[in-house]
């Protein structure tokens, strides 16, 4: 490790810093003024810690951060002894339902919630080779009212009610 650190300090860091400086200088001098203005107009979405219910207010935050949230959930779900159930993928798919008539569609369908962006962005995800892509019917994971509500807004309200109840019962970890 010591060796890595030394190499990192002596060789790589200066080289990387120099590279970054040159790139920045290149971008600064090469970018036409109208592009710089466009970058100012759309401030980058901050990477931030997501908390329960947070993403509903600003979809951009979730669009940007859902991977981190899933990664955290996936490490936690498989390994932690005191599992925190907040961020399971079952909960994602239980709220984000796309229905064909009465029936929710699975990830095999291009209309499935996750597919809508991923198809456009050319991202193939591997979640649903193992995970269920249909809403859970387990009342312990999500109240049936969430699954049965029609609009996203109603589902969100039901979901908030459910998490409050769980917290009151002391079972929501």
């Amino acid at each position, binding site marked *: 490790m010591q060796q890595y650190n030394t190499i990192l300090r002596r060789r*790589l860091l200066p080289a990387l810093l120099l590279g970054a400086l040159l790139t920045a200088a290149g971008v600064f001098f090469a970018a036409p003024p109208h592009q710089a203005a466009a970058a100012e107009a759309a401030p980058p979405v901050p990477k931030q810690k997501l908390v329960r219910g947070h993403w509903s207010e600003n979809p951009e935050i979730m669009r940007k951060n859902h991977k981190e949230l899933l990664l955290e959930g996936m490490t936690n779900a498989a*390994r932690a002894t005191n599992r925190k159930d907040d961020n399971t993928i079952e909960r994602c798919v239980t709220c984000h339902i796309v229905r064909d008539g009465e029936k929710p569609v699975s990830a095999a369908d291009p209309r499935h919630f996750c597919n809508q962006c991923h198809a456009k962005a050319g991202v193939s995800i591997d979640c649903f080779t*193992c*995970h269920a892509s249909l809403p859970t019917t*387990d009342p312990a994971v999500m109240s049936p009212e969430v699954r049965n509500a029609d609009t996203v807004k109603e589902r969100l309200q039901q979901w908030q009610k459910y998490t409050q109840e769980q917290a009151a019962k002391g079972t929501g970890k």
Partner: protein
Amino acid sequence: MSITGNKKTACAESSCMQSRRRFLLGAGAILLAPGVLLTVRPALADETGRQRWGLLIDTRRCVGDCSACVTACSTTHGLVSNGRPATDPQWIRKVQVTDPGTGHVAHMPIMCQHCGNAQCVEVCPTGASLKRADGIVLVDKHLCIGCRYCVMACPFKARGFAHEEVENPSPVSPRGKGSAEGCTMCVHRINKGQLPACVEACARSGHEAILFGDLNDPTSLIAKRVVAFGAAALRADLRTDPSVRYVGVNL
């Protein structure tokens, strides 16, 4: 074979794992080559190692013509048979043993023994096979590369492999083609304070042959019974220190 013995082994095991983890964490992110980073995921803080979940199987109560535990397991974890017995998933096997000396016949379910000294964890090259702080042995399928070393290493034929695509995975038990798998002791139920599905099904069938509990808690029923009955470990000679114990057979 005493409870304290178990506890010691479990603690030694987990502390050794922790120090290894701490070493890796100290490394944080290692630069393998320019542009190739090996990042190590953070360890989780809430692991106490106080509990050790176990099962006690009373073979005197288990009968040959019942398969309630096996059915419950398949339903809970979505284990669907494809009509190919060699590769179909099976997390619990019903086994009949006969004592050649006395002719005494016993029936018992055999699932992952959640060994204190788990060989599957020892051999896994990716860290996918893991032992939780509460003694449950699992596969983190996000990391499993399907090499099947664990399947070879398990002395109890308890580690299986998903050979075929899974059509409708159970929401509570994600599983898919190409990954090792085995009895999870129903962690998803234990996390919620429920009993494992097989234990519940066995009780519902009226046999009550499987008892679930914390082996590290000397006041728990399971710990008391393990002591009182001198419950045996399968292949004790291998010293895998299983969390699943059997009563009523000379193993």
